[in-house]
C-alpha cells in the first residue's frame, strides 16, 4: 500500500478526534497529533484502535511510543502491512 493511499484512509480517522476549535483543514502529514492538533492524549489509544480496524494490523506498546505525527503513523502502518 502506498504512503498516499494510507494517508487518505488515515486522515478521516484523525479528523474524528479533533477538538471543536481545530479545523479539519489544519491536518497534514507533519502535524503533531497532541501538540499541534490539540487532540486529547487519551484519544491516541482510540485512534490506534480505529487504525487497527481500518488496516487489519495490531500496534504494540512500543509502536504507540513512537507515534507523534501522521507521518509516524504512516511509517508504522506501512511496516505492519508489509509484515502481514
Amino acid at each position, binding site marked *: 500500500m502506498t504512503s498516499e493511499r494510507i494517508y487518505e484512509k488515515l486522515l478521516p480517522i484523525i479528523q*474524528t*478526534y479533533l477538538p471543536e*476549535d481545530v479545523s479539519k483543514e489544519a491536518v497534514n502529514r507533519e502535524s503533531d497529533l497532541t501538540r499541534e492538533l490539540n487532540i*486529547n492524549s487519551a484519544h491516541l*489509544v*482510540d485512534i490506534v*484502535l480505529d487504525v487497527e480496524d481500518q488496516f487489519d494490523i495490531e500496534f504494540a506498546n512500543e509502536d504507540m511510543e513512537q507515534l507523534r505525527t501522521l507521518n509516524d503513523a504512516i511509517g508504522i502502518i506501512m511496516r505492519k502491512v508489509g509484515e502481514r
Partner: protein
Amino acid sequence: MKKRVVITGLGIVAPNGVGVPQFTEAIKKGVSGIAFYPQLRALNFSCQIGGIPTISEEKKRDYFTELQLKNFNSSGILYGVIAGMDAMRDAGISPSEKNKAPLWDLGIVFGTGTSGVDKFREAIYKLDEGNVRRLGSTTVGQTMASGISAYLGGMIGAGNAVTTNSSACATGTEAILMGYERIASGQANQMLCGSTSDDGPYVWGGFDAMKVITYKHNDTPTEGSRPMSASASGFVPGSGAGALLLESLESAQERGATIYAEVLGGAINSGGQRGEGSMTAPNSEAVQKCIKEALVAAGIAASELDYINGHLTATIKDSVEIANWSEALDRRGTDFPYINSLKGMVGHCLAASGSVEAVSAVLQLQQGFVFPNVNCEDLHPEITQRIASERIPRQLIQTPLQTVAKASFGFGDVNACVIFRKI
C-alpha cells in the same frame, strides 16, 4: 448565619416527559411512561415492563459532540447531562468559556446508583476474551461512579466541588441537601444538584430476582405501578434524571433570576439496619426521626406542611410509610397534608427517583397544583384508616401550596427529607 438557598433552574428527563414543559403537562394529566419491553421478556424477566425516557438521536446531538457520542453507551450519563444542562440553561447560567477560568463558585453534586452498566458489560466481554487493549479511552469515564458529575463538570466548567453521591433510592434527595449545605455554609454560590439512573435489564435484573417488582402487569403496563393501592404488587423499574440548580438567595437576586422556591433545609439519617431495619427494609423510628429533624432544620411546624411528595413505591410497605408520616407529623384524617406519588406514572427511577420527584414537587409548589395519583382507585385500607382518602387526590387539584416536603428512603436503611417553600 446560614445563607438562604433558592432553586433557580430545573431539568428533567422522565419516562413520561423530557423537559420541564412536557413533563409538567404529563404529570397534570396523569400520563404514564411505563411500557412493555420485549427484551425483558426475551431475557426471562418476571417483570417485563419499565420506564425509559424517549431521547431521539437528534436530541442527543444538542448536548453531545459527535466525538463524545463515539463509543458512548451509558444511558445514565445521557439522561443526567440533558437534565443538568437544561437546569443550567433554565437558570440562565452559561458554562465558562473554553480557555477561561472555571466557574469557581459553581459546584455539582450529581448522584447515581451505578454508572454505565451497558458500557461495563461491553468492556467485560472484551476483557474476558483477552482483549483488554480494545477497551479504548472512554470506558473509565463512563463506568466510574462519578462519570455523570465529571461529564457535567467538563461541559459547564464547574470550579467548585464536583462530586457524585450514592445512597440507593435516597440519592437524589440527598444530593439536593448536600448542595444546599454547601451554599448555606458559604462554600459555594451555585450548586447543580440531581441524580440519574441507567435503564435496562442489567440495572433491573437484581430487583427482578428479589421479587420486589411486579410480574402481574406485563399485558397492562400503564396499570402496573400502583402506589398506595390495595392491589399493589411490587414496584415497576424506571430510569431518567432530575436536576435542580440551587443558588444563594443573594446571588439569585443579584442576577435577577427567576426563583422557583426556597430550600428551607432538611435531614439525612439511617436506621442502622437495626430493629425492623435491614438492607431492604426501613427502620420506622429512623424514618420518623428524619422527617421530624427535617422540620426542625427548616424551622417549620408540622402543621405548616401543605403537601408531601412521598417515596411510595407500590409495594406492601406503602402503608408503613403513610403511618410514619402520620406519626412524625402527628396529623391524620382530613388534617393530613395532600400526598401523592409520582411512581404511579414513571415507576421507581431508583437513584434518579429523588431528584425526578423533587422536580415534580417544586413544579407543583410553584404553579399551585397537586398532580393526580394514578392506579390507586382501590386505596389500601390500612392507609385510609389513617388518612382521609380526599388527601390522596385521584384527580388534578388546583390549589395554592406554601410549604412542601419531599422524602426518599433507600436500600441500606437510609433516609432523606427536604422541605421547600414558595417565595
